[in-house]
């Protein structure tokens, strides 16, 4: 069977993304975990590029890899987590965690199985992810939900600062 370059890239990127995502969970050192998560984000950004959505790809990297994960790394580095100081989980905790995780996985798979299959034309010339089209969609067609979401984020931000403060003047 002949695959196109795009399909090859899709396969490689998906494999890498899943592999790095698994490494996030399986690696022992929290710093390595964060770095693998960053690699996962890069693979997902590659998927955006394959969909001809350069703006989404770069913004994904700026926001997730460049800002959020740096803060994660920041906090983990300051906490200085070692295997000696980390509390060991009991067998009961592990069992319950595995059970809940398994149930969640079953629910996810069930939902995906019931969802209708989207058919999309793979022409490679999709313009939906271009910054101009995205801007028009966000600020014209979906302006109200967009503003509501930003107000929600602002509320969360202020709330986090209030909760984090030691004493309120």
């Amino acid at each position, binding site marked *: 069977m002949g695959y196109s370059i795009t399909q090859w890239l899709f396969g490689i990127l998906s494999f890498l993304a899943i592999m790095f995502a698994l490494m996030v969970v399986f690696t022992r050192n929290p*710093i390595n975990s964060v770095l693998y998560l960053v690699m996962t984000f890069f693979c997902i950004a590659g998927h955006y590029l394959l969909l001809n959505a*350069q*703006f989404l790809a*770069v*913004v994904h990297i700026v926001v997730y890899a460049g*800002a959020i994960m740096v803060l994660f790394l*920041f906090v983990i*580095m300051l906490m200085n987590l070692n295997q000696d100081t980390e509390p060991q989980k009991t067998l009961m905790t592990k069992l319950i965690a595995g059970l809940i995780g398994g149930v969640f996985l079953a629910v996810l798979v069930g939902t995906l199985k019931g969802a209708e299959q989207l058919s999309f034309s793979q022409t490679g010339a999709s313009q939906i992810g271009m*910054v101009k089209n995205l801007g028009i969609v966000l600020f014209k067609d979906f302006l109200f939900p967009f503003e509501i979401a930003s107000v929600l984020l602002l509320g969360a931000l202020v709330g986090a600062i209030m909760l984090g403060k030691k004493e309120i003047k």
Partner: protein
Amino acid sequence: MLTFVIYKSILCVVVFGVSLGVAAYSTWWERKFAAFLQDRKGPSRAGPFGILQPLADGGKMFFKEEIIPNVSNKFLFVLGPSLFLLTALMTGVVIPWGKDLIIGGKAYPLQVTDINIGIIYVLGVTSVGVYGIMIGGWASNNKYSLLGAIRASSQMISYEIAMGLSIIALVITAGGTLSFREILEKQDAGISNVMYQPLGFLIFLICAFAETNRAPFDLSECETELIGGYNTEYSAFKLGAFMFAEYINMFISSAIMAGLYFGGYNFPFAHELYSAMGLQEGSVAISLIGFLVYFFKICLFISVFMWIRWTLPRFRYDQLMNLGWKVLIPLSLFNLVLTVVVEFFRGTIVF
């Protein structure tokens, strides 16, 4: 197709070589400039005016002993400087270095790639560059390195916000495009964006100092508090990579400032000069003059970086954070609102 690939590969190698060359000679110029400001002579032994000093420094860096601390995380210890140098070199590809070369009726753009989100690409790559410092500082397993790395990364994240906001204001003025080439071509008449965005330029300049970890914001390598900062444990060329990347970052941010705010390869009365010299539009000579003008502007900006380093004392850390969050971000928001209002009355923005 083949000529396209060959041409782009050559251009990539040239941009790579020029970045490295400019970075190397920036170190020489920095020493000369510092010497001038302190009434000294500066490097004068290696070659005339010490012109071979960067080669001597580079050779020394290569032949020094490489030390990897026993208690460090070895893979990440090497990854840190590599990543920092890699991301520094990656930003040069979206900058248009001159007008298209037209040879035999075919246009050869002096830009590796013209992606429609060039500016955000640069922001993205620089934001990933923080990992180089953070990983290097943490993997050294030294408290001073860690503190330096954390200072550097928090500073870069804080100043990225104000920088992004000042770029948004610029993009609105420049006609709503994120492509470098289009922003430069809009300044074709010789009127630079800095005339419309003086406040935005000032904010961008300050943020560029903070983003490149240069004085007066070089708290991450503050000797009096942190020995050497994030590169305390590094030796030989791994230290060289950190320093080299800093100079490349300086070169690239000078190129971005000269391009976005000062017209890049355009200059006032360019078309009058070309017609007086009898040059056809699109000839090789015009591309060359444009490139030289751009390069001259970049060199001026690099000199400004050095001038400020050797004149201003270092900030305190809380002053740095206050300046970033309580002065620059409100100021850039004000600049953004002002720009939108002005552009609305000029009729460029319609709701």
